[in-house]
């Protein structure tokens, strides 16, 4: 392959990998919003918590795969507890209170992280089997980034199966479009809410574990990813999983090719894209106007 072709393919792959990370974080955010109408400001903090639990489990077991399973489950359980004992009590009083509560939860998570793990960055290394580069023609690509892409696709497939092939998925989809009607049918909607919130935070936890070996695990980890995930959800349309997936990939590619061709504009391309989308379709690409 010619060197330019290799370069562009590499950039596309990097864009895809970053897009998949964005998807892992934004999927949970959009799911929670679509289902419960809550804009979970603490979502990125759960993502950060996933990375910290990954470090903790890894340092206790020495096994990345155990941490990939255990850390998101702990984050998901924390999400369940937050929904059950904090958010549910406020649900009857409207979304403003819930929104403020999620801000508070985010701050508590940040404070707790500093107390338990300190402020310094923590090391999480790439598992041995995923270290190194894979050669595809003239292209050399890090195996771990391929793993991130594969992981996100597997999670997307599992989510698709649950949402579109199971009764639970049917209930969740029903609740997303009309929670009151689902409630009237005798479904325990609060329990569904709790499940969805836990699942959404579990997804954030998976994202946190996935990025821990390539990013610095420190108390500021949530800031930038949180903002990017929020922009994805707004652009895609609140509550649209399909939209979150497509827009995440678009943003990933915009980021990579932006750096390649217009580096000075690269940081603002996604915001420009969002502005254009919202100007044309205020509810987002896949959002539905009420």
């Amino acid at each position, binding site marked *: 392959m010619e060197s330019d072709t290799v370069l562009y393919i590499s950039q596309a792959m990097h864009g895809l990998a970053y897009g998949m990370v964005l998807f892992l974080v934004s999927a949970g955010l959009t799911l929670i919003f679509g289902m419960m109408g809550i804009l979970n400001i603490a979502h990125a903090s759960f993502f950060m918590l996933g990375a910290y639990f990954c470090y903790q489990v890894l340092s206790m077991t020495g096994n990345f795969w155990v941490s990939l399973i255990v850390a998101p489950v702990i984050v998901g359980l924390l999400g369940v507890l937050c929904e059950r004992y904090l958010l549910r009590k406020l649900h009857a009083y409207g979304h403003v209170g819930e929104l403020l509560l999620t801000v508070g939860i985010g701050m508590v998570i940040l404070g707790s992280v500093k107390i338990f793990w300190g402020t310094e960055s923590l090391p999480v290394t790439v598992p041995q089997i995923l270290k190194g580069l894979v050669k595809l023609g003239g292209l050399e690509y890090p195996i771990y980034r391929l793993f991130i892409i594969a992981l996100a696709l597997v999670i997307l497939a599992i989510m698709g199966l649950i949402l579109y092939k199971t009764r639970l998925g049917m209930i969740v989809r029903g609740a997303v479009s009309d929670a009151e009607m689902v409630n009237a049918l005798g479904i325990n909607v609060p329990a569904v809410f709790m499940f969805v919130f836990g699942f959404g935070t579990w997804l954030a936890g998976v994202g946190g574990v996935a990025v821990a070996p390539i990013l610095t695990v420190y108390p500021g980890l949530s*800031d930038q990813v949180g903002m990017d995930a929020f922009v994805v959800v707004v652009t895609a349309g609140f509550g649209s999983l399909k939209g979150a997936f497509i827009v995440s990939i678009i943003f990933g590619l915009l980021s990579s090719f932006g750096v390649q061709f217009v580096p000075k504009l690269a940081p603002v391309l996604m915001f420009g894209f969002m502005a254009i989308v919202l100007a044309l379709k205020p509810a987002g690409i896949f959002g539905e106007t009420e």
Partner: protein
Amino acid sequence: MKALRFVVAVVVLCILSLFLIPQARAGMDAFDVNKMADMSDFDPNHPVIPTGDTIKIALVASFSGPAATVAQMYWACATFVAHDINKRGGILVDGKRKKIQLMKADHMSKPAQTKKVCERMVLHEKVNFLIGTNGSNNMKVINQVAKKYKVIAQDFTALSDELYNATNFTKYSFMTVPSCEVVGKALAYYYGKIRRKEKKFYILCQDYLFGHSMAKGFKRGLELYFPEAEIVGEDYHKLFLKDFAPYLEKIKASGAEVIYTGDWIPDAENFLVQARQMGITLPVANLFLNEPNMLHRVGIAGTNRLVNFSMCGAAEGSAFPTADQVKYYHKWHDQWKKWKAPYNTYLYEHGWSASGSMGSYIQQIYWLMSVIKRAGSTDPDKIIDVWEGDSYRDVFNTVYYMRPSDHKVVADYYVQIYGPPEEQKACFNIPPYYWFKGCSNPIKIYRIPALRCAPPMDTKMARCKGRDIWGNLIK
């Protein structure tokens, strides 16, 4: 009559000497490890902070927020110095011995908060000195407050040259840290005049004032010392970038032989980790890729061939060439073994560490103490009188000179070449004969003369016109 003249002459000489001797002494002071107090009870987790009639110093830094680690590090350095000075009985100012009272002033990395906290420190706490800080934007605010309320500020960490240009200069602030251009010139000098091998450079810095200043300094240095060098790419990325892969792919395709970066953590860490994961093993000329915890994460191979500008260090050769320097090393290191979190990590192990940053902060604060002592007062004008044109010799025998025209420090600095633990013996010449077992660290140190890496001077300022790099009038 003759006898009377003789007596008058003796009296006049005695009176003159009362003025002249302190003035002469004020010209040069030196750090003396043998005058240090017993530091065996020093613990940054439990500093003894005196109250009452003290010399009040506000350490302005990000004690909370994402950059809290930085303030934590400054605190360890400042409390170390204060502990030593206080155990010696304090400093004689205005006819009274006073101890150093350090106060935390948290700016949360926000300029608006910096203004608020500095004003509170000056107006309510009545501090005599403001010292700091991380972030040139925050340092700029500190300097503005210092100017407004006529309080002395010491910049011991913010590196932007622009802080002391015609627009921002204030006589109340002193930059004791080397500026961006100093760093850039020193690294360019190393590649152009010492190493003379790699010629293709790629500049990757953060997209704000500091990053651009770092790049400007390096380009200026290449122009001066390595005109045949080629800059094959130049990018500025946003702060706290997560994914460096697109930039690294460009670097790979550019044919660069060296990457130059001014990035600080977390960007520096993400950049290095991701570069090595992508198989990019190019040497990286840098300023902040020296944090030991991060170096351990990247490992020995990944940190090999780093080329680090050091703010503080020994002369060429071993890191501890004299018994005094070994003694000083133990003043810190022996206590470190007893400390608990967060001060029990690699970052604090060596005190001034291989990196030089912490060592430099400590020595810069000692310089401030020395200036207060020689001024014999906390009065800002007396401090300015002593500090302008002052020279101070640090524990490594590096002489810092405070350029009177723009208050920027001029000194020799160092470039360190990193290598694996088994090669570190040449540098770390005391047991266990390596800085760290789990990562590369300095194996060779090169001294860059002050003349070759002097900070720029803004000649738009009246006080800088027609002056040389030492601030002297050119005849």
